[in-house]
């Protein structure tokens, strides 16, 4: 089958067409029509809400009444509010510890799943399985697993003579509990890493072995550089996920009738949870919009920093 250009394009070279030509306008409208699902979706579901939230962040707005312009009041209130700083601190704690650990666990898991052992497809499926469990269902499951009286986790620790902590009652242990629950679902990241490992050319390992490189040296000088573009992607995606972390702490801190809760001493209150409570429990939608913009700017800055550093550690054809 041969590819044929449309008749109009055959008779009138594109360079000869002028912007105002009928055929050119038709092509433009046709293109816009094809792109319209995205354009309409973008305008109504992204552009308008983004613009609206920017406007609301300068207003006193409770969802039910007309917004009232208050200038920078929401932002000044935010920076003077200890709960704001606590939620930011909790989020950064989870991010700083959670991102590297999630990457390390995923990468280690991918290596284990890359060994040529019997039943490997089954192991891969088992590792990925928690990722497809709805996160809310997983959350309630973990509430029971972490229960000191009836939970399996402390029972398991007890088998080794370890007196497990009160995971969801002691402020020092609530964030490790959230991290545990998060690491339970690193299967998706692990599978992506596994695909990356399989893409590393075998001859590079063979060459390294001939040069006398051991397993650790092969990982450092072959595997790590070759999968570094995937690592950059994983770091950014995981970073954004941790900065926006909501469901896991929300479920673990949840109280009867879903009243606003933050765990013992506010230790589970993440930035996204605080934003949600201000918006939908306290009906301070203007303040919450301001928080959303702070989170957006914070995420953008951190992502740009990671991208800037990537030139030094991400291997590519040009680098």
């Amino acid at each position, binding site marked *: 089958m041969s590819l044929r250009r449309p008749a109009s394009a055959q008779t009138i070279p594109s360079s000869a067409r002028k912007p105002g030509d009928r055929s050119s306008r038709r092509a433009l409208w046709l293109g816009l029509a094809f792109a319209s699902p995205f354009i309409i979706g973008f305008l109504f579901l992204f552009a308008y809400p983004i613009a609206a939230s920017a406007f609301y962040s300068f207003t006193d707005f409770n969802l039910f009444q007309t917004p009232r312009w208050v200038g920078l009041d929401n932002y000044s209130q935010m920076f*003077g509010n200890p709960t704001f700083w606590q939620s930011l601190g909790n989020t950064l704690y989870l991010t700083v510890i959670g991102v590297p650990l999630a990457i390390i666990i995923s990468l280690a898991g991918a290596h284990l799943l890359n060994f040529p052992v019997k039943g490997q497809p089954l192991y891969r499926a088992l590792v990925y399985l928690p990722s497809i469990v709805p996160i809310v269902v997983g959350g309630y499951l973990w509430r029971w697993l972490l229960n000191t009286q009836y939970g399996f986790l402390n029972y398991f620790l007890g088998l080794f003579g370890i007196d497990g902590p*009160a995971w969801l009652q002691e402020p020092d242990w609530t964030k490790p509990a959230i991290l545990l629950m998060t690491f339970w679902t690193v299967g998706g990241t692990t599978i992506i890493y596994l695909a990356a490992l399989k893409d590393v050319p075998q001859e590079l390992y063979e060459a390294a072995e001939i040069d006398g490189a051991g397993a650790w040296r092969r990982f450092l000088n072959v595997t790590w550089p070759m999968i570094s573009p995937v690592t950059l992607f994983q770091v950014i995606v995981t970073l954004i996920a941790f900065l926006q972390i909501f469901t896991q702490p929300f479920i673990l801190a949840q109280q009867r009738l879903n009243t606003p809760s933050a765990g013992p*001493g506010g230790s589970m209150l993440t930035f996204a949870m605080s934003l949600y409570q201000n918006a939908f429990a306290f009906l301070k939608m203007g303040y919450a919009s301001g928080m959303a913009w702070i989170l957006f700017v914070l995420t953008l800055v951190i992502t740009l920093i990671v991208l800037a550093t990537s030139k030094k550690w991400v291997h590519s054809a040009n680098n």
Partner: protein
Amino acid sequence: MVIAPLAACSTGGGSDGSQGTTTITFSYLWSGPEAESLEKIIADYNASQSEVKVIGVSSPDFQKQLTSMSSSNGSFDISDNFGDVVGSWASKGILAPLDDYNIDMSGFVPSSLTQMKYGGKTYSLPIAIHSQLLMYNKKMFADAGVQVPTTMDELADAALALTKTDADGNITQLGLGEAAPGATQRMIAAAFGGSWWDKDGQPTPLNDGNIQAMTWYQNLVNKIGPDKIAKFVAGYGQYQSDQDPFFSGKLAMRIDGEWNGVGIPKVAPGLEWGVITIPGASPQYKDTTEVTASTLFIPANSKHKEAAAKFLAYMVSPDAMKAFTVALGNMPALTSLLDSSADYSAIENFSAFADALKSPNAYAPSSAVSAGEYMTDLNKAFDSIASGNETPKKALEQVESRVSSYSK
């Protein structure tokens, strides 16, 4: 979570012109056996007339309920909540005023209507009222040879005497626990003459009685060990289930409400429990109890307010209210029903909770605009106090510093 809005959409069409029947959606927070009882009342109403058809939807999520009322087209026409949200919601135009509908409001227990009003108008009506008292496990008291306390000092002594630990120092039985985080701490303040609100409903975290109560509580917790208590509490099962610590005999005392009179016989039929009023730190502060109300309201975005008001009038009529409150073990909000408590005699310890309503020290929490934010901050302060991380005064000063930022 998906079913409720779908059900609401499919039935919220309103008037079925040909038959003159208006269909309304009643989205309620109750679930399980309570929802089943409610559905029977709804079925009775639907069978009794043809003007309004009510579709009941169990949707036990406060925040989902609130967001459902933010659109111009309501997904439900009548719902329930508690009295402490009335001020906040009415001030934002979420609730429809009920004064213009033909609903008899003359027979309610007067104190139960206090929270229902905002700006001189009535925005909700109580279908049930609740009081909270000190519940105790009779067997544990007998086994330990402890008498029921009559002062706060005696309460502290009893809580210590009834707390048991194993060889490793882990608590196996706690003397005084909580039905919900912060509930005990909030309610013992009145026993010291404290209050979390002034007469206008504005927050007063630094009231002297509050600080005294929190100091009493922190001293008690420190004697047992905050970490040990935290570990024990982390093992609590679901409230009012087989694993509920009071129901399963792991908790000797807790402050809780009259609905346990129905819940305990169902879940823990062998439990021998008694009820006493919360002791006072001094005689003038004895017999305190927090009185709250389960309310029904019509959201401002309902398209069928007239029909919803008719159903609401039915729900707060003596027959429906009696059926509802007897089933749930709640106290009726109508004086006529409350005085004829024979209907409620089968509910364990019901009379003690009903009598508490008559105490001069019974009080209702504020329904001020800022109540939600204030309670969230108070619970955080209670955590700091219970864990020993802050002194009561410092923890409550931090709440005070936040008061000016609350919604007005």
